[in-house]
Protein backbone atom coordinates (compact mmCIF):
# COMPACT_ATOMS: atom_id res chain seq x y z
CA UNK A 1 0.00 0.00 0.00
CA UNK A 2 2.79 2.37 0.78
CA UNK A 3 4.71 3.79 -2.11
CA UNK A 4 8.30 2.60 -2.16
CA UNK A 5 10.93 5.22 -1.47
CA UNK A 6 12.61 4.63 -4.86
CA UNK A 7 9.42 5.45 -6.75
CA UNK A 8 8.73 9.09 -7.60
CA UNK A 9 5.88 10.55 -5.53
CA UNK A 10 2.58 11.29 -7.26
CA UNK A 11 3.09 15.05 -7.00
CA UNK A 12 6.38 14.82 -8.88
CA UNK A 13 4.73 12.74 -11.60
CA UNK A 14 2.01 15.37 -11.94
CA UNK A 15 4.62 18.12 -12.30
CA UNK A 16 6.49 16.10 -14.90
CA UNK A 17 3.29 15.46 -16.86
CA UNK A 18 2.52 19.18 -16.86
CA UNK A 19 6.03 19.80 -18.15
CA UNK A 20 5.27 17.58 -21.14
CA UNK A 21 6.39 14.11 -19.98
CA UNK A 22 3.49 11.81 -20.96
CA UNK A 23 5.41 8.83 -19.61
CA UNK A 24 4.91 10.28 -16.14
CA UNK A 25 1.14 10.19 -16.60
CA UNK A 26 1.40 6.58 -17.80
CA UNK A 27 3.12 5.78 -14.50
CA UNK A 28 0.25 7.39 -12.61
CA UNK A 29 -2.26 5.34 -14.61
CA UNK A 30 -0.39 2.10 -13.83
CA UNK A 31 -0.13 3.08 -10.18
CA UNK A 32 -3.85 3.70 -9.70
CA UNK A 33 -5.67 1.60 -12.31
CA UNK A 34 -6.09 -1.54 -10.24
CA UNK A 35 -7.05 0.28 -7.07
CA UNK A 36 -9.62 2.39 -8.91
CA UNK A 37 -11.07 -0.56 -10.83
CA UNK A 38 -11.46 -2.56 -7.61
CA UNK A 39 -12.96 0.36 -5.73
CA UNK A 40 -15.48 1.04 -8.51
CA UNK A 41 -16.23 -2.65 -9.02
CA UNK A 42 -17.10 -3.13 -5.33
CA UNK A 43 -19.40 -0.10 -5.41
CA UNK A 44 -21.09 -0.83 -8.76
CA UNK A 45 -20.93 -4.64 -8.90
CA UNK A 46 -20.22 -4.54 -12.62
CA UNK A 47 -16.67 -5.07 -13.82
CA UNK A 48 -17.23 -3.64 -17.31
CA UNK A 49 -18.71 -0.41 -15.95
CA UNK A 50 -15.97 -0.24 -13.33
CA UNK A 51 -13.34 -0.31 -16.08
CA UNK A 52 -15.18 2.26 -18.18
CA UNK A 53 -15.53 4.60 -15.23
CA UNK A 54 -11.90 4.12 -14.21
CA UNK A 55 -10.95 5.20 -17.74
CA UNK A 56 -13.23 8.23 -17.39
CA UNK A 57 -11.55 9.09 -14.06
CA UNK A 58 -8.14 9.19 -15.72
CA UNK A 59 -9.50 11.28 -18.56
CA UNK A 60 -11.03 13.86 -16.21
CA UNK A 61 -7.95 13.98 -14.03
CA UNK A 62 -5.73 14.50 -17.08
CA UNK A 63 -7.95 17.29 -18.39
CA UNK A 64 -7.84 19.13 -15.07
CA UNK A 65 -4.27 18.30 -14.07
CA UNK A 66 -3.17 21.95 -14.03
CA UNK A 67 -5.83 22.66 -11.41
CA UNK A 68 -4.48 20.01 -9.02
CA UNK A 69 -3.44 21.58 -5.72
CA UNK A 70 -0.31 19.78 -4.41
CA UNK A 71 -1.14 20.68 -0.82
CA UNK A 72 -3.66 17.82 -1.00
CA UNK A 73 -2.75 14.23 -1.75
CA UNK A 74 -3.15 13.17 -5.37
CA UNK A 75 -4.67 9.86 -4.21
CA UNK A 76 -7.40 11.75 -2.36
CA UNK A 77 -8.13 13.84 -5.44
CA UNK A 78 -8.33 10.95 -7.89
CA UNK A 79 -10.50 8.87 -5.55
CA UNK A 80 -12.81 11.85 -5.04
CA UNK A 81 -13.29 12.03 -8.81
CA UNK A 82 -13.95 8.26 -8.85
CA UNK A 83 -16.34 8.54 -5.92
CA UNK A 84 -18.34 11.30 -7.61
CA UNK A 85 -18.55 9.36 -10.86
CA UNK A 86 -19.69 6.24 -9.00
CA UNK A 87 -22.39 8.23 -7.21
CA UNK A 88 -23.60 9.63 -10.55
CA UNK A 89 -23.65 6.13 -12.03
CA UNK A 90 -25.59 4.72 -9.09
CA UNK A 91 -28.12 7.55 -9.38
CA UNK A 92 -28.41 6.99 -13.11
CA UNK A 93 -28.97 3.27 -12.76
CA UNK A 94 -30.88 3.62 -9.50
CA UNK A 95 -29.19 0.52 -8.09
CA UNK A 96 -31.62 -0.61 -5.42
CA UNK A 97 -30.05 -0.66 -1.97
CA UNK A 98 -32.27 -3.15 -0.14
CA UNK A 99 -31.81 -4.74 3.22
CA UNK A 100 -31.05 -8.44 3.20
CA UNK A 101 -33.49 -8.91 6.06
CA UNK A 102 -37.26 -8.98 6.01
CA UNK A 103 -39.68 -8.96 8.90
CA UNK A 104 -42.41 -11.53 9.09
CA UNK A 105 -44.43 -10.73 12.19
CA UNK A 106 -42.03 -11.01 15.10
CA UNK A 107 -39.50 -13.01 13.15
CA UNK A 108 -36.75 -11.70 10.93
CA UNK A 109 -35.58 -13.72 7.95
CA UNK A 110 -32.82 -13.38 5.46
CA UNK A 111 -33.86 -12.99 1.82
CA UNK A 112 -32.65 -15.75 -0.42
CA UNK A 113 -30.81 -13.76 -3.02
CA UNK A 114 -30.63 -15.09 -6.55
CA UNK A 115 -26.92 -15.14 -7.43
CA UNK A 116 -25.67 -13.71 -10.67
CA UNK A 117 -23.58 -16.78 -11.46
CA UNK A 118 -24.47 -20.49 -11.80
CA UNK A 119 -26.12 -20.55 -8.36
CA UNK A 120 -28.09 -23.80 -8.11
CA UNK A 121 -25.13 -26.04 -8.71
CA UNK A 122 -22.35 -23.98 -7.29
CA UNK A 123 -19.69 -26.43 -6.31
CA UNK A 124 -16.63 -24.34 -6.05
CA UNK A 125 -16.09 -23.06 -2.58
CA UNK A 126 -14.12 -20.02 -3.68
CA UNK A 127 -16.95 -18.94 -5.97
CA UNK A 128 -19.38 -19.38 -3.12
CA UNK A 129 -17.09 -17.43 -0.90
CA UNK A 130 -16.75 -14.67 -3.47
CA UNK A 131 -20.52 -14.34 -3.62
CA UNK A 132 -20.75 -14.34 0.16
CA UNK A 133 -18.13 -11.62 0.43
CA UNK A 134 -19.88 -9.50 -2.19
CA UNK A 135 -23.18 -9.87 -0.39
CA UNK A 136 -21.62 -9.18 3.01
CA UNK A 137 -20.02 -5.98 1.73
CA UNK A 138 -23.23 -4.89 0.02
CA UNK A 139 -25.17 -5.51 3.21
CA UNK A 140 -23.03 -3.07 5.22
CA UNK A 141 -24.61 0.30 5.98
CA UNK A 142 -23.59 2.63 3.10
CA UNK A 143 -21.06 4.77 4.97
CA UNK A 144 -19.41 1.70 6.52
CA UNK A 145 -19.38 -0.02 3.16
CA UNK A 146 -17.66 2.87 1.44
CA UNK A 147 -14.94 3.11 4.08
CA UNK A 148 -14.29 -0.66 3.93
CA UNK A 149 -14.12 -0.52 0.13
CA UNK A 150 -11.83 2.52 0.17
CA UNK A 151 -9.50 0.79 2.63
CA UNK A 152 -9.44 -2.75 1.29
CA UNK A 153 -10.01 -2.25 -2.43
CA UNK A 154 -8.88 1.37 -2.95
CA UNK A 155 -5.93 0.77 -0.58
CA UNK A 156 -6.18 4.25 0.89
CA UNK A 157 -4.61 4.92 4.29
CA UNK A 158 -6.77 6.02 7.24
CA UNK A 159 -5.49 9.58 6.80
CA UNK A 160 -6.32 9.61 3.10
CA UNK A 161 -9.83 8.32 3.79
CA UNK A 162 -10.31 10.99 6.47
CA UNK A 163 -9.26 13.68 3.99
CA UNK A 164 -11.39 12.28 1.18
CA UNK A 165 -14.52 11.87 3.30
CA UNK A 166 -13.84 15.03 5.33
CA UNK A 167 -14.21 13.01 8.52
CA UNK A 168 -12.19 13.09 11.73
CA UNK A 169 -9.51 10.39 11.78
CA UNK A 170 -11.03 8.83 14.91
CA UNK A 171 -14.38 8.42 13.14
CA UNK A 172 -12.69 6.67 10.22
CA UNK A 173 -10.93 4.23 12.57
CA UNK A 174 -14.10 3.59 14.49
CA UNK A 175 -16.29 3.01 11.44
CA UNK A 176 -13.72 0.73 9.85
CA UNK A 177 -13.53 -1.28 13.05
CA UNK A 178 -17.31 -1.63 13.22
CA UNK A 179 -17.59 -2.39 9.51
CA UNK A 180 -15.01 -5.14 9.79
CA UNK A 181 -16.74 -6.56 12.86
CA UNK A 182 -19.97 -6.79 10.83
CA UNK A 183 -18.11 -8.46 7.98
CA UNK A 184 -16.48 -10.88 10.41
CA UNK A 185 -19.87 -11.88 11.80
CA UNK A 186 -21.44 -12.30 8.36
CA UNK A 187 -18.51 -14.27 7.01
CA UNK A 188 -18.00 -16.38 10.14
CA UNK A 189 -18.35 -19.60 8.10
CA UNK A 190 -15.27 -18.71 6.10
CA UNK A 191 -13.17 -17.57 9.03
CA UNK A 192 -13.42 -20.67 11.25
CA UNK A 193 -10.44 -22.51 12.72
Amino acid sequence: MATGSALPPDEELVARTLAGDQGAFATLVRRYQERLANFLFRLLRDLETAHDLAQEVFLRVHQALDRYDPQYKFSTWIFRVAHNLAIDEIRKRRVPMVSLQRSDGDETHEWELPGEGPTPYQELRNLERGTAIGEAIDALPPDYKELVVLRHFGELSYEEIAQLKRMPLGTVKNKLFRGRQMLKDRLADYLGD
Partner: protein
Amino acid sequence: MGTERDDLRQLLDREVDGALDAGERALLEQALRRHPDLALERRRLQRLHGILQAERVAVRPGFTEAVLASLPPAPWQARRRAWAFPAAAMVALAALAWLLVGLEAERFAGGPLLGSLAALADFAVAAALSGAGLLAASWRGVGMALGEALSLPQQALFAAGVLALDLLLVVLLRRGRRTGAAEAPEVARGPRS
Protein backbone atom coordinates in the same frame (compact mmCIF):
# COMPACT_ATOMS: atom_id res chain seq x y z
CA MET B 1 -13.37 -4.45 31.63
CA GLY B 2 -15.80 -4.20 28.70
CA THR B 3 -14.34 -0.89 27.63
CA GLU B 4 -10.80 -2.19 27.93
CA ARG B 5 -11.70 -5.22 25.86
CA ASP B 6 -13.33 -3.00 23.24
CA ASP B 7 -10.20 -0.85 23.13
CA LEU B 8 -8.06 -3.96 22.74
CA ARG B 9 -10.23 -5.25 19.92
CA GLN B 10 -9.88 -1.92 18.17
CA LEU B 11 -6.12 -2.11 18.59
CA LEU B 12 -6.18 -5.66 17.25
CA ASP B 13 -8.24 -4.55 14.27
CA ARG B 14 -5.76 -1.84 13.39
CA GLU B 15 -2.78 -4.11 14.09
CA VAL B 16 -3.95 -6.61 11.48
CA ASP B 17 -4.52 -3.65 9.14
CA GLY B 18 -0.90 -2.56 9.66
CA ALA B 19 -1.94 0.76 11.17
CA LEU B 20 -0.40 0.63 14.68
CA ASP B 21 2.54 2.70 15.83
CA ALA B 22 5.31 1.16 17.94
CA GLY B 23 3.80 2.23 21.28
CA GLU B 24 0.39 0.80 20.46
CA ARG B 25 1.98 -2.43 19.25
CA ALA B 26 3.86 -2.86 22.53
CA LEU B 27 0.66 -2.20 24.47
CA LEU B 28 -1.19 -4.82 22.44
CA GLU B 29 1.53 -7.44 22.89
CA GLN B 30 1.27 -7.01 26.67
CA ALA B 31 -2.51 -7.32 26.50
CA LEU B 32 -2.30 -10.46 24.37
CA ARG B 33 -0.19 -12.09 27.06
CA ARG B 34 -2.85 -11.17 29.63
CA HIS B 35 -5.80 -12.26 27.42
CA PRO B 36 -4.79 -15.29 25.34
CA ASP B 37 -8.34 -15.61 23.96
CA LEU B 38 -7.71 -12.49 21.86
CA ALA B 39 -5.40 -14.59 19.72
CA LEU B 40 -8.47 -16.27 18.17
CA GLU B 41 -9.89 -12.86 17.29
CA ARG B 42 -6.58 -11.94 15.73
CA ARG B 43 -6.56 -15.10 13.56
CA ARG B 44 -10.09 -14.39 12.36
CA LEU B 45 -9.22 -10.83 11.46
CA GLN B 46 -6.15 -12.03 9.59
CA ARG B 47 -8.33 -14.44 7.62
CA LEU B 48 -10.83 -11.69 6.89
CA HIS B 49 -8.05 -9.52 5.46
CA GLY B 50 -6.82 -12.52 3.49
CA ILE B 51 -10.14 -13.30 1.85
CA LEU B 52 -10.80 -9.62 1.07
CA GLN B 53 -7.39 -9.44 -0.57
CA ALA B 54 -8.13 -12.61 -2.54
CA GLU B 55 -11.31 -11.02 -3.91
CA ARG B 56 -9.47 -8.26 -5.73
CA VAL B 57 -9.98 -8.24 -9.48
CA ALA B 58 -7.28 -7.78 -12.10
CA VAL B 59 -7.42 -4.93 -14.58
CA ARG B 60 -8.37 -6.07 -18.09
CA PRO B 61 -5.43 -6.52 -20.46
CA GLY B 62 -4.43 -3.45 -22.43
CA PHE B 63 -6.23 -1.09 -20.04
CA THR B 64 -3.27 1.28 -19.59
CA GLU B 65 -2.72 1.60 -23.33
CA ALA B 66 -6.43 2.15 -23.92
CA VAL B 67 -6.50 4.94 -21.34
CA LEU B 68 -3.44 6.68 -22.76
CA ALA B 69 -4.73 6.38 -26.33
CA SER B 70 -8.11 7.85 -25.39
CA LEU B 71 -6.76 11.03 -23.79
CA PRO B 72 -7.73 14.09 -25.84
CA PRO B 73 -5.40 17.11 -25.67
CA ALA B 74 -6.00 18.78 -22.32
CA PRO B 75 -6.66 22.55 -22.16
CA TRP B 76 -3.36 23.07 -20.35
CA GLN B 77 -1.53 21.25 -23.16
CA ALA B 78 -3.15 23.48 -25.78
CA ARG B 79 -2.11 26.56 -23.80
CA ARG B 80 1.43 25.26 -23.61
CA ARG B 81 1.47 24.62 -27.37
CA ALA B 82 0.13 28.13 -28.08
CA TRP B 83 3.06 29.60 -26.20
CA ALA B 84 5.61 27.26 -27.66
CA PHE B 85 6.13 29.02 -31.05
CA PRO B 86 6.36 32.62 -29.76
CA ALA B 87 8.63 31.47 -26.96
CA ALA B 88 10.89 29.59 -29.38
CA ALA B 89 10.96 32.60 -31.70
CA MET B 90 11.91 34.89 -28.82
CA VAL B 91 14.66 32.55 -27.70
CA ALA B 92 16.00 32.35 -31.26
CA LEU B 93 15.96 36.14 -31.65
CA ALA B 94 17.63 36.61 -28.27
CA ALA B 95 20.30 34.12 -29.23
CA LEU B 96 20.86 35.90 -32.53
CA ALA B 97 21.07 39.29 -30.80
CA TRP B 98 23.47 37.92 -28.23
CA LEU B 99 25.62 36.48 -30.98
CA LEU B 100 25.72 39.73 -32.95
CA VAL B 101 26.33 41.92 -29.91
CA GLY B 102 28.83 39.44 -28.54
CA LEU B 103 30.85 39.52 -31.75
CA GLU B 104 30.96 43.30 -31.54
CA ALA B 105 31.91 43.10 -27.86
CA GLU B 106 34.99 41.03 -28.62
CA ARG B 107 36.71 44.31 -29.26
CA PHE B 108 35.84 45.77 -25.84
CA ALA B 109 38.76 45.80 -23.41
CA GLY B 110 36.79 44.76 -20.28
CA GLY B 111 36.18 41.22 -21.50
CA PRO B 112 33.37 39.61 -23.49
CA LEU B 113 30.69 39.76 -20.75
CA LEU B 114 31.20 43.43 -19.85
CA GLY B 115 31.58 44.19 -23.55
CA SER B 116 28.24 42.53 -24.28
CA LEU B 117 26.51 44.50 -21.55
CA ALA B 118 28.07 47.78 -22.72
CA ALA B 119 27.05 47.06 -26.29
CA LEU B 120 23.49 46.26 -25.18
CA ALA B 121 23.35 49.54 -23.23
CA ASP B 122 24.63 51.42 -26.30
CA PHE B 123 22.00 49.73 -28.40
CA ALA B 124 19.22 50.71 -25.96
CA VAL B 125 20.38 54.34 -25.85
CA ALA B 126 20.60 54.55 -29.63
CA ALA B 127 17.12 53.02 -29.99
CA ALA B 128 15.67 55.51 -27.46
CA LEU B 129 17.31 58.48 -29.18
CA SER B 130 16.16 57.49 -32.64
CA GLY B 131 12.65 56.83 -31.29
CA ALA B 132 12.51 60.26 -29.69
CA GLY B 133 13.78 61.85 -32.92
CA LEU B 134 11.11 60.11 -34.99
CA LEU B 135 8.39 61.17 -32.56
CA ALA B 136 9.49 64.82 -32.61
CA ALA B 137 9.66 64.80 -36.41
CA SER B 138 6.19 63.28 -36.63
CA TRP B 139 4.61 65.87 -34.37
CA ARG B 140 6.39 68.65 -36.25
CA GLY B 141 5.00 67.25 -39.49
CA VAL B 142 1.47 67.09 -38.07
CA GLY B 143 1.76 70.69 -36.85
CA MET B 144 2.93 71.91 -40.24
CA ALA B 145 0.11 70.08 -42.05
CA LEU B 146 -2.50 71.51 -39.68
CA GLY B 147 -1.07 75.05 -40.06
CA GLU B 148 -1.21 74.69 -43.83
CA ALA B 149 -4.76 73.32 -43.74
CA LEU B 150 -6.08 76.07 -41.50
CA SER B 151 -4.46 78.94 -43.47
CA LEU B 152 -7.50 79.20 -45.82
CA PRO B 153 -11.11 79.60 -44.45
CA GLN B 154 -12.75 76.98 -46.76
CA GLN B 155 -10.07 74.42 -45.98
CA ALA B 156 -10.35 75.19 -42.25
CA LEU B 157 -14.10 74.59 -42.44
CA PHE B 158 -13.57 71.30 -44.30
CA ALA B 159 -10.94 70.15 -41.76
CA ALA B 160 -13.27 70.97 -38.83
CA GLY B 161 -16.04 68.91 -40.48
CA VAL B 162 -13.74 65.93 -40.95
CA LEU B 163 -12.61 66.20 -37.31
CA ALA B 164 -16.24 66.32 -36.07
CA LEU B 165 -17.12 63.24 -38.13
CA ASP B 166 -14.12 61.40 -36.73
CA LEU B 167 -15.15 62.23 -33.16
CA LEU B 168 -18.71 61.06 -33.84
CA LEU B 169 -17.39 57.78 -35.26
CA VAL B 170 -15.23 57.20 -32.18
CA VAL B 171 -18.20 57.83 -29.83
CA LEU B 172 -20.43 55.41 -31.80
CA LEU B 173 -17.78 52.71 -31.85
CA ARG B 174 -17.24 52.96 -28.08
CA ARG B 175 -20.97 52.75 -27.38
CA GLY B 176 -21.29 49.67 -29.62
CA ARG B 177 -18.43 47.92 -27.84
CA ARG B 178 -19.97 48.60 -24.41
CA THR B 179 -23.30 47.09 -25.50
CA GLY B 180 -21.53 43.98 -26.83
CA ALA B 181 -19.63 43.54 -23.56
CA ALA B 182 -22.85 43.69 -21.54
CA GLU B 183 -24.36 40.87 -23.62
CA ALA B 184 -21.34 38.57 -23.45
CA PRO B 185 -22.11 36.74 -20.13
CA GLU B 186 -25.53 35.80 -21.47
CA VAL B 187 -23.87 34.15 -24.44
CA ALA B 188 -21.37 32.40 -22.19
CA ARG B 189 -24.17 30.77 -20.20
CA GLY B 190 -25.30 28.96 -23.32
CA PRO B 191 -28.70 28.65 -24.90
CA ARG B 192 -31.73 28.92 -22.69
CA SER B 193 -33.71 25.75 -22.24
